[in-house]
Structures are given as structure tokens and as C-alpha cells.
């Protein structure tokens, strides 16, 4: 079986359409858009709240598929060992456990989609999560996927869990709570392995953290994720602490979000 599979080769049926990034840049309407930050935090009083929630949870659904594929590839792409291009066997076991979690999340997300009236493939699929999982350096993968993107998942799940509670939706609340618990574990695995694998390699650690910052900023676009009420997705400080983020690291993400919001 091939190692280091490119994102273009992900297997999808005809229901799925890949998000066209070029078309997004060519969309001149975006210049006039007030930005997702201006949309504000999603609450039951938000007029388009049900459709915003549906769209966001579909994004999470395809993210779960890619997280499964990414963790699976990390199990396969790297041999067990102590060389730079190898990973400890225990890391592969953690990735295998994550595959099991992500598989359940996919099934939960399909059922949740049915509950919310969303069809599989109703929205275009952005494959940036899997792209981050294609890095040749396992440590950078963990920083980009487990810490940045799974960290974002913590923020989204917590935001949607709170929305479910506020709107009285017991299914959304329950699903988010269960998946959130797993995401905290995934981020913690990323944090722990990042520190262990780069313990004696500060350059590699810095490259990994820089890669994480790039991914974090990408998803803070226009203030999409942040600590202000204007941000649709709220930075979940408490759960990030549980996942191994230091206060300084969380402050950095908050600052990145503020910068991204200011840049629009």
C-alpha cells in the first residue's frame, strides 16, 4: 500500500464535492463580505442559527472523516523506531486509538446530520485537515492536526454544545459532549508526543509550533474563532488546558485570532 497519499486521492463517492479554493479567491463578493466575525456568536436568537449549525456540523462531519484518514495514514506512513523518519510504536497505538474514536465520530455525525436535516455531502468538503496530515514530519503532523485542528474541534464542539443547551436540543448537546471528551484526549496526545519527540531537538519543536501557528491562524480567518462575542466559535480555554495547552499557548491563539479578525 502506498505511503504518503496526497489529498487528491482521498476516496469519496458522488455525494461529495471538494471545496474549490481557487473559486473562493476568485469570488469578488468576498471583498464586500463583512466577514464571519461580524456574524457573531451563534445563539438561539440568531435568525439563521439552525442553518449555521447545520453547515458547521457538516464541516465537522467531513473533518471527522479526514481525521480518521489522517490518523490512519500516520499509523501506516511511519515505521516504528527511533530514527527521525520513524515514530515510537506507542505513538502508532495512540493513532490507532484515535482512528477508532474518529470512526465513532463519523457515525455520530451521520446520525446528528439526519437529526438536523442535513444530507451527506450537502456542503462542499474542505480537505485542509487531511492536507495538514500529509506533512512528511510526524511531529509537524501532530502539531498541525492534533493540536491546531483537533484544538479547533474542541472550540467548535464546546460552542455547539452550548448552543444545543441554549436551544434545548438534547441530541446536539449530547453528541457534542461525547465527541468533545474524545477531542480533548486527541489534543492531549498531540501535546504529549510533541514534547517527547522534540525534547532534545528545539529546532524541530519550533518548526512544529510554527506549523501549528500557521494552521491556527488559517482557521481564525476574519475572527471565525476567538474570545470576543463577535466570533462564531469561542476559544474553549478550560478544555484546552485539560488538553495540555499552557496558558501562554492559549493566549497566543487568542492573539492570533484577534490579528486575523483585524485583518478581516
Amino acid at each position: 500500500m502506498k505511503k504518503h497519499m496526497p489529498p487528491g486521492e482521498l476516496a469519496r463517492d458522488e455525494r461529495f464535492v471538494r471545496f474549490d479554493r481557487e473559486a473562493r479567491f476568485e469570488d469578488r463578493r468576498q471583498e464586500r463580505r463583512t466577514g464571519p466575525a461580524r456574524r457573531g456568536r451563534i445563539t438561539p436568537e440568531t435568525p439563521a442559527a439552525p442553518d449555521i449549525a447545520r453547515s458547521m456540523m457538516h464541516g465537522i462531519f467531513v473533518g471527522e472523516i479526514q481525521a480518521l484518514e489522517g490518523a490512519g495514514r500516520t499509523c501506516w506512513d511511519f515505521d516504528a523506531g527511533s530514527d527521525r523518519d520513524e515514530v515510537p510504536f506507542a505513538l502508532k497505538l495512540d493513532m490507532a486509538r484515535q482512528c477508532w474514536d474518529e470512526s465513532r465520530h463519523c457515525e455520530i455525525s451521520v446520525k446528528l446530520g439526519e437529526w438536523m436535516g442535513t444530507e451527506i455531502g450537502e456542503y462542499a468538503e474542505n480537505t485542509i485537515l487531511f492536507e495538514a496530515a500529509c506533512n512528511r514530519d510526524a511531529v509537524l503532523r501532530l502539531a498541525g492536526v492534533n493540536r491546531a485542528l483537533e484544538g479547533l474541534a474542541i472550540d467548535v464542539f464546546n460552542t455547539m454544545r452550548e448552543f444545543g443547551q441554549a436551544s434545548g436540543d438534547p441530541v446536539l448537546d449530547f453528541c457534542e459532549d461525547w465527541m468533545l471528551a474524545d477531542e480533548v484526549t486527541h489534543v492531549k496526545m498531540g501535546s504529549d508526543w510533541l514534547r517527547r519527540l522534540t525534547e532534545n531537538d528545539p529546532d524541530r519543536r519550533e518548526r512544529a509550533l510554527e506549523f501549528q501557528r500557521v494552521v491556527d491562524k488559517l482557521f481564525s480567518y476574519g475572527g471565525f474563532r476567538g474570545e470576543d462575542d463577535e466570533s462564531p466559535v469561542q476559544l474553549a480555554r478550560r478544555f484546552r488546558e485539560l488538553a495540555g495547552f499552557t496558558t501562554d499557548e492559549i493566549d497566543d491563539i487568542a492573539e492570533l485570532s484577534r490579528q486575523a479578525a483585524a485583518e478581516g
Partner: protein
Amino acid sequence: MASLRVTVTPDTFTLVDFDPDRIAALAAEVASKVGLTGDITIEVDQTTPLGRTRVVSVDPVVVNVQSGAFEDAKRLRQLSERSAVDVLGRLFHRVKDRLDPRFADAPADGDLTLAQATAWDTYAVGRCERLGYHPSKPRRLYHFRNRHGFTDVADQAFERLWSAPAGSLSWADIQAMCDQTAAIRV
């Protein structure tokens, strides 16, 4: 047969790949099935990708939609005929209702609560389904539950609104169902 003339503005789209003639044809078909006549204007705001929609005027009929409301969720800037029909069917039914004296006491659109607007939309979209279109009932049910509660009472009210034949409900009926679901919400 009463005349029906549809105008789409702008007549040329530059920021989205929408065909105004196609939109006009879809609007004419939907309006005809709903039972509207006369002049109808569809104003498409192509400067924003957002998806707000509103009835600007009932007589003559003028509706305003942001381009995101007609857009294919999978393909940026492309027209989704299903979305266009969904939106137009819902808005045209509201227009049709407002022309009915039994809806004379309905608040202006801007004064409708989210619960009232969602209940009215349910009645409208259910009629679209019976006209042969294919709106997503589960999506509408989720909207309804968000505004009326995740309860059996709300689900029963949804079914009554969704399956109500054209012309069978008045504004008072819709308001009564809103009151019923509100009574059991905390």
C-alpha cells in the same frame, strides 16, 4: 389565463454565474403553481454571498434575495435551481397568504417573531411539497424545533402546519399553534 410577468434584476450578473432568464423561468413556474398573477420582480443582491430573503412588496410582488440564497452550497457562485425554487416557493406562498383577508392581522414581516416566521414558513414549504417540489422536510423540522421546542407538542404542530392544504389556515390558526408550543416551553 391571467397574465404573469417576471422581471429579474440585475439583467446581467457579474459577480455570480446566475442566468437571469433561468431564474425568471423558475419564478414564473412557481408563481403560476402558487396562483400569483401580475408583475413580479426578483431583485438579486449579487454583492453579498449571504442568504437573506424578504418580501419587499405584495402588490406588485417584489422579493429581494441575497445571492447566497440561490447559490449551490457545493459550487461557489453557481445557481442552485433547487434552492431558488425553495426560496421562491416559500416567499410566493407568503405573498399569496397576505393577499388573503384572513391574514390581514398578521404582523409585518419585520415584526414577526422567529417562532411566528418559522411556523408560517412551515405552512408555506409544506404546500410547496404538494405542488410537486422537493423541499427538505427534515431541515424544516429542525428549524421548527429550534424555534418551538424539542417536544412532542412542537412536532405535532409542525405536522399540522406542514400537511395543511392550501387556503385552509388563517393567521389566527398559525398564531394559535405558536401559542400552544410557547405554553409548554420553559
